[in-house]
């Protein structure tokens, strides 16, 4: 199995398309860093305009942790599109090149073959996230330094102490890995149905965009559907940055406001992954391979 995964990883990283995502992340984060380094104070003033009418916020608001949060908030909606570029190409790409039929003549079960391809996709997804973490967290910590993290939520603001932040990012990236693996499994599933990569890539992107819009819309009729959309649960990483308060309204350092919500979202995402991979295996085992 490990040899199969290695072969698939070799194939993924031999293609120039794979590096588009890494380049895109580097470029996007670079632009955000450049902009915030140059004119970050104006951005902070704009961000704080609703709170400064009654509260004065003093300190180094625009620090590495803050910039990382801004970057993740912007990028974790778009990174799925970059993952789709590779995940949705895994089977359809082989079919397009005509190598799928040849590969399946080897004495390896279809299930093992498919799982190896899926594992390689997950490895690519995780590597992309590691790169995102390096660029968004560590590079920003170097450029902007570290300090407390001040977050604006829709109904309240959260202030996290500097020594209470890093572990939250570790868990948040772990959760993001789960969310991105869900996207990868969706793209992987779609790649079974086409002999050209374009179709599955566009289909995966469309589903993500469509579901994200549904998740964002605050219209009562859609509220019943939202809990079933995986895009609603993909932003569960943000829950790691919400803190509990005691009866005296003092934030409890090291606490998470709603761990059950994180568990629930993680469960929904895991079920989606299992669902898509199982469906992929079932479809692939009975698929008539003609190319």
């Amino acid at each position, binding site marked *: 199995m490990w040899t199969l995964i290695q072969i698939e990883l070799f194939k993924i990283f031999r293609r120039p398309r794979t590096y588009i995502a890494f380049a895109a992340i580097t470029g996007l984060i670079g632009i955000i860093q450049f902009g915030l380094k140059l004119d970050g104070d104006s951005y902070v003033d704009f961000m704080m305009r*609703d*709170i*400064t*009418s*009654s*509260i*004065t*916020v*003093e*300190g*180094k*608001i625009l620090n590495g942790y803050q910039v990382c949060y801004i970057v993740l*908030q912007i990028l974790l*909606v778009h990174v799925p599109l970059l993952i789709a570029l590779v995940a949705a190409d895994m089977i359809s790409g082989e079919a397009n090149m005509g190598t799928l039929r040849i590969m399946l003549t080897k004495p390896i079960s279809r299930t093992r073959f498919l799982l190896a391809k899926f594992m390689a996709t997950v490895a690519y997804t995780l590597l992309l996230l590691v790169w995102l973490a390096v660029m968004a967290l560590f590079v920003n910590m170097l450029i902007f330094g570290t*300090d*407390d993290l*001040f977050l*604006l*939520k*829709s*109904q*309240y*603001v*959260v*202030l996290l*102490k*500097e020594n*209470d932040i890093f572990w939250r990012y570790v868990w948040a990236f772990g959760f993001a890995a789960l969310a991105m693996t869900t996207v990868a499994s969706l793209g992987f599933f779609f790649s079974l149905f086409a002999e050209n990569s374009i179709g599955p890539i566009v289909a995966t992107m469309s589903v993500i965009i469509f579901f994200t819009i549904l*998740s*964002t819309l*605050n219209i009562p009729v859609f*509220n019943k559907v*939202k809990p079933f959309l995986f895009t*609603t649960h993909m*932003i569960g990483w*943000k829950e790691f940055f*919400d*803190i509990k*308060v005691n009866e*005296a*309204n*003092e*934030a*409890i*350092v090291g606490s998470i406001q709603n761990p059950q919500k994180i568990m629930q979202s993680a469960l929904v995402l895991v079920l989606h992954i299992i669902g898509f991979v199982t469906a992929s295996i079932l479809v692939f085992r009975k698929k008539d391979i003609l190319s």
Partner: protein
Amino acid sequence: MTKMIRIKKIILLLIAALFSVAVNAQDMTGLIMKVKAKLDQVSDYEADGKMKTDVAFIKAPVGKVKVYFKKPNKFRLKKDGGISLLPRGGVSVNMNSIITTADFIALAAGEAMVGGTKTKVVKLLPANENSDIVLTTMYIDEANLLVKKAVTSTKENGTYEIEMSYGAFGQFGLPDKVVFSFNTKDYKLPKGITLEFDDNEKELTEAQKIKNRKGRVEITYTNYLINKGMSDSVFK
């Protein structure tokens, strides 16, 4: 004739009343000056403290702060590293800066109990029209010359209340604990901006909204360094 006598009596009564107000006002100025003299023993101080912010829409842990004061009215509150959330224009107003306002009119407004201590209520009106402070009501422990509570109305920053408890540094008029109460505005951001997808928030009742508009900052001082000299650069 009797009508004339009655008018004269009324005029005399009015004059007497005016005199008594003037006398009271003078008395209160005297008390304020005594409190000021007590505070004047301190040319500068540096204090360590713990600050707790209790505002409905803020989730913040208790933080360590450092407070600096230098005569006549330089005041700075710094968090010991990190980000601090303070009521707008508020905490910088301290007893020294209120009483340092040279021109004021002090009027007696009776007596009241504050934290089990009998206090004199003094209304302090700044004579300077440009002063941000419109009115300060002080509750002064006359026996110890300590300001136990002050309610200040300002032009720009609303009304806030400062309540003080004294301990070891009471002899310098410096409190061990300051509770600062102020009004806050409603806070709400669209979920589209904060990227929150859940819809299980409950609408607040009017009573809850009113309660949420009150904020408190509590500073408990642990240590004072008094009259050790201080550079002006601390306040920049």
